[in-house]
């Protein structure tokens, strides 16, 4: 049941991605509308899948990393539709949805997993949920940074190409990366703090060499540095965009470590 639903959701997201890319090339309203419809249809299936999963498990669908990633994808797609609606930034889907699809494909392989009873407590669920919302926000931060660099390149080289016409202004894009950073950072921070506290309670040690813990701390440092740079030193634009990209790459490595390396977060 869950497998079918999650497959349907990912198929919806793949369709939405294809259409969003087509919209980037063709800019036909109809194509964009179909893309949003596909994304919403996939998201509806995804919602039901998550409900089914929690009923099956009798716990939040966050017990294994693939399941948690599935929740992150769910948040990404929701945010994608909302941000496009709010800002009229219709090309956003073409940059964000492919990432959602890649992450979503990982989620389809998830076997139902839950935490060892010793671990299960409300705090651990909140730790995972907050971290996932943070990751979702940083996907947008990353997409905004990529779009900023593309547009800046176009303007600096003085040779307008496809992206010059399709992407919004530099200031709009810089604001998008700043706001998504400001949104994701508190979630990531709280998520990490809870995780650390929980580790102390569960294992008695705050910090052992766990790859996910280490890498996510590195990502946190990068994002904290960017935020501080923005706030105090007036960082913006290209420099902030580079940091966003490095931060996101670290987050992806973190997820990869969780999926493929042994450790407290591994399955």
């Amino acid at each position, binding site marked *: 049941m869950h497998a079918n639903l999650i497959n349907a959701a990912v198929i919806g997201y793949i369709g939405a991605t294809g259409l969003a890319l087509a919209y980037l090339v*063709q*800019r*036909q*309203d109809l194509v964009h509308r179909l893309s949003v419809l596909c994304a919403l249809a996939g998201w509806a299936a995804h919602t039901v899948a998550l409900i089914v999963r929690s009923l099956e498990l009798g716990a939040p669908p966050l017990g294994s990393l693939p399941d948690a990633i599935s929740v992150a994808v769910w948040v990404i797609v929701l945010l994608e539709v909302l941000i496009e609606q709010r800002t009229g930034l219709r090309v956003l889907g073409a940059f964000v949805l492919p990432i959602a699809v890649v992450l979503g494909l990982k989620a389809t392989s998830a076997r139902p997993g839950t935490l060892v009873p010793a671990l299960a407590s409300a705090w651990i669920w909140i730790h995972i949920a907050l971290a996932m919302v943070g990751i979702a926000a940083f996907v947008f931060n990353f997409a905004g940074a990529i779009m900023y660099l593309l*547009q800046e390149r*176009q*303007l*600096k080289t*003085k*040779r*307008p*190409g496809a992206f*010059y*016409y399709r*992407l*919004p*202004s*530099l*200031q*709009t894009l*810089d*604001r998008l990366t700043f706001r998504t950073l400001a949104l994701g950072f508190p979630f990531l921070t709280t998520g990490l703090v809870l995780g650390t506290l929980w580790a102390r309670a569960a294992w008695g040690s705050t910090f052992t060499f766990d790859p996910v813990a280490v890498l996510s701390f590195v990502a946190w440092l990068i994002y904290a540095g960017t935020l501080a740079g923005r706030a105090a030193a*007036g*960082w*913006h*634009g*290209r*420099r902030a965009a580079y940091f966003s990209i490095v931060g996101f790459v670290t987050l992806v490595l973190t997820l990869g470590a969780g999926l493929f390396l042994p450790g407290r977060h591994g399955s």
Partner: protein
Amino acid sequence: MPLFVAGLSHKNAPVALRELLAVEEDKLRELLHDLQSSDVLREVVVLSTCNRVEVYGVAEAPGEARALAFRSLCRHRGVDLATVEPLLYTHVDADAVRHAFRVSASLDSMMIGEPQILGQVKEAFALAQACEVVGPHLHPLFSQAFSVAKRVRTETEIARHAVSVSFAAVELAKKIFDGLAGRAVLLVGAGKMSELAARHLVEQGAFPIYVANRTWARAQDLARALSGTAVPWDELPTALAAVDIVVTSTGAPDPVITRAAVTRVMHGRRGRPLFFIDIAVPRDVETGVDGLDDVYRYDIDDLKQVVDANLRERAREAQRAETLVEREVGKFLARQGDAEVIPTIVSLRERLEEIRLGEVKKTLARLPDAPPETRAAIEALSSAMVNKILHAPITKLRESSRAGASRTWQEIVHELFGLGRRP
């Protein structure tokens, strides 16, 4: 009744000839009345602009109608028909519909996407309407042409990207800044070009405007004209720190804005971009500023390059517009064609029904004692045969009308079934 368009345009006729043939409105009225009263043309619209002279009409013999129309046009303007004749093109039926749509949508214009042509077509149509020379053929044609033009304008970006240097600069500013409302502009030098660019920026909400010029009086004049403030030449560096967009157009032989000056200014701006529009030759802004973050410098050649890219973008969008037009032509012909073949279908049906009734009557007269079942069977048999026979020609007529070639098929049907002259 064939629809046709005949005329000449910027594509094949030199401007010297086009200006000779351009007709003013009251003469146009006369011409329209003459043409319609000739019996050769049923309906007629004449489009006369500086880029094209075209006659849209409905006539049994388009060739004859075209000759008549241009003969009177030439007579009126004192032009020898022989010089015009070889330049004329004629499109009939589907091609005429396509031409009308393309012209209205500005796909056939000298500058693709220019907005004037639609207004000119509307005027030409309104005039013909006022003269009561349009009817059931040209009316739907032009109404749909207007809606096609509107769709092309809203659904493609054929008219969106600037094709002039000063508008291209405004568009660039919009790709740097989040809207132009409240962006401060500094004009350095008081040339005509920079005034034009400044006006475009003001129209988009840029404010306030500062003007710096070596001659104080000229700075004041231009500042007054733009509702801006004149800035003493020595205060240029200070002014640079306060503005977002700088338009330079001095006649100075050396750059008046140096990389060093801009570097100093950028420190205090906290990432607020600075956009230089340098339309002076020789250039006023050192090219070295390109290496600075958040500084964007476009000189006149860069702007021309942007305009070229915009033109290419328009051409790409025109391709999409052509597809849209093609679909609309199909729709128009289908609607029109159905309306056109219906009279033929009706008379064909009536003719066969007439034959059937006649034959049934004769047969029944010869069978006075036939039981009611037999009579009913004969009725049913004959009806079924008529319907079977009708099926293929009716289908063919409808198909041909969609393909825009119904006339030939209508004629064939009229000949074969002896329906008399085609309506």
